[in-house]
């Protein structure tokens, strides 16, 4: 057991540079975890990537954690790695569940974050500001039951099995195409009213 393992040297550098925005840090099972204030997260992550002494050029993983205790905040977790230094660091942000769940997207820093953030949005309902294409990824575009990995989501979904079957059978086949694709195919008129409304609000995609 590496309980006595020392924290990553990045922690001291982070504290020196960002002060109070670094909320706390711990070494858990040998890995250094740093909690960062959500409003400065993008700045901190950007610095960790670009500072020559840090060089965390590889985003290993991006996910979210919601605890069973409803009082605890929802966490967005970034697993960073420096390929050159062979070093790892875990950054966490806490989001108050009473407020809208929103963080800045890191797609501009790591292209790999694109699908990972879409998955967190799909599964937890966290919105990533400035994400180029934030839409559901594993569930389908018109999925209405909510966010499956949230703790208030029952294992078998919110709807009954018969309702799920009814919706699946009644689905508009055009809904299997994303708005972006429909804009290419010029079949905008075939969209359901609800999708056209969302499109009208400019939620995503561009339609000629």
């Amino acid at each position, binding site marked *: 057991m590496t309980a006595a393992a020392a924290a990553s040297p990045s922690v001291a550098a982070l504290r020196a540079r960002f002060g109070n925005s670094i909320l706390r840090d711990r070494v858990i099972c040998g890995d250094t975890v740093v909690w960062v204030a959500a409003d400065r997260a993008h700045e901190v992550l950007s610095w960790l990537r670009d500072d020559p002494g840090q060089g965390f050029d590889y985003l*290993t993983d991006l*996910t979210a954690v919601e605890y069973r*205790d409803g009082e605890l905040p929802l966490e967005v977790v970034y697993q960073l790695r420096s*390929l050159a230094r062979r070093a790892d660091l875990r950054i966490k942000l806490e989001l108050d569940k009473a407020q809208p769940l929103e963080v800045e997207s890191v797609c501009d820093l790591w*292209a*790999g974050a694109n699908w990972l953030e879409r998955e967190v949005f799909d599964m937890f309902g966290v919105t990533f500001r400035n994400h180029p294409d934030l839409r*559901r990824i594993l569930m389908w575009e018109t999925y209405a039951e909510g966010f*499956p*990995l949230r703790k208030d989501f029952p294992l078998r979904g919110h709807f009954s099995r018969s309702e799920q079957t009814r919706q699946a059978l009644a689905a508009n086949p055009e809904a299997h195409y994303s708005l972006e694709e429909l804009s*290419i195919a010029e079949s905008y008129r075939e969209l359901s009213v609800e999708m056209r409304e969302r499109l009208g609000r400019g939620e995503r995609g561009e339609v000629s």
Partner: protein
Amino acid sequence: MSTRTVEFELSTPGVDAAGRDIRVPLGARAREADDFASEHTLINIGPQHPATHGVLRLVIELDGETVTRCIPHIGYLHSGFEKLAEYRHYNQIIPLTDRTDYLSPMANNVCLAMASEKLMGIEITERCQVLRVIACEMSRIISHIVWLGTTGIDIGAFTPFLWLFYQRERIYNLQEAWTGARLTTSLTRVGGMMADIPEGWEAGLRDFCQTFPKVLQEVDTMFTKNAIWCGRNQGVGVISREAAVNGSLSGPLLRSTGVDYDVRKDRPYLGYDTYDFDVPVGEHGDNYDRYLVRLEEMFQSTRILEQALDRLAGLRGAPVNVDDARVILPPKSRAMSDMESMIHHFKQVMEGIRPPVGEAYLGIENPKGELGYYFVSDGTAKPVRWRIRPPSFLNLSALPQMCEGALLSDVIATNASVDIVMGEIDR
């Protein structure tokens, strides 16, 4: 907008009504280029298509035959494994891992056990380490065999597929003899293995290690300098080193671009640092380099397997499971004869193991890339969160980048060379 013009009028030999030879034009006469180039075509490949290697759906916008946009759609095989795990004990999650990357189930089992052990701070026995190395490398070989065989078929070579699948069958037989299952192996347990290898099993693997490289060499002869293979793969599906790192690619895809990162070497687990093997690294980041990297990895895996078998001979009779009552069941004979052991067995099965409050991320080098399992525990027997870092998911996310600007037929070759498995992407 394409300005390509039709230079030749295509025609085919035929006969007219009087039986004389004539040239029959194919389709309409050559039209003005703008006529058909002004409109882009949207085509849909999948989700049921033999070349998408599972239920992947690609929507492709074509300008003539050139791909201008490629939009992958996933989720058709989504089973909610991560959600399910929140309702299960740690050892009960192992069968779920079989079903994620179902082309290398044993390696997934190993990763799950190791992540749980990291969470609990358990050091496994030496014999267990060697057995797990064998499981991982056997998985790497069968996964790469599926990749190479099916990629050959996608590009039009059927024979190597049959040669390779015969070899895969041999590993599957070994897998069956060891675990009782060919696909859903559920081989590991937290703190050890479900079973030790049966008597005389090593001989079968030893025989495989001696004969398999010869088959690989034949495949090498068939493919590596084959004009069609080179033409379809070299310079196709290129991704730069910077884009690969920035896009979080891993495994052979990352190494084919020249990045020398292999979890087995750079973050050694299971004592991989004590084995003698090389990590092949490409330089062009195209389909062909990915082929070369994976082919060499199969040779290297055979080397590792041979070394592991040698070590196993020196560890005959050594314990496989750790001596830790928190995670390992008492022997069946004791559970049936002694009260304490029976209670222990009952509690262990009904209540599950309880890791302390904490979290652990553990990544291993799977055939597809870095597979990571991230556990968050609140001290109960069921994890708060089980996150799979799926290598195929991230590798597939770079597919549009590799395809756009190429021809439609290159999409098939490139998609094959990315080596995806939908069970893991959709989870």
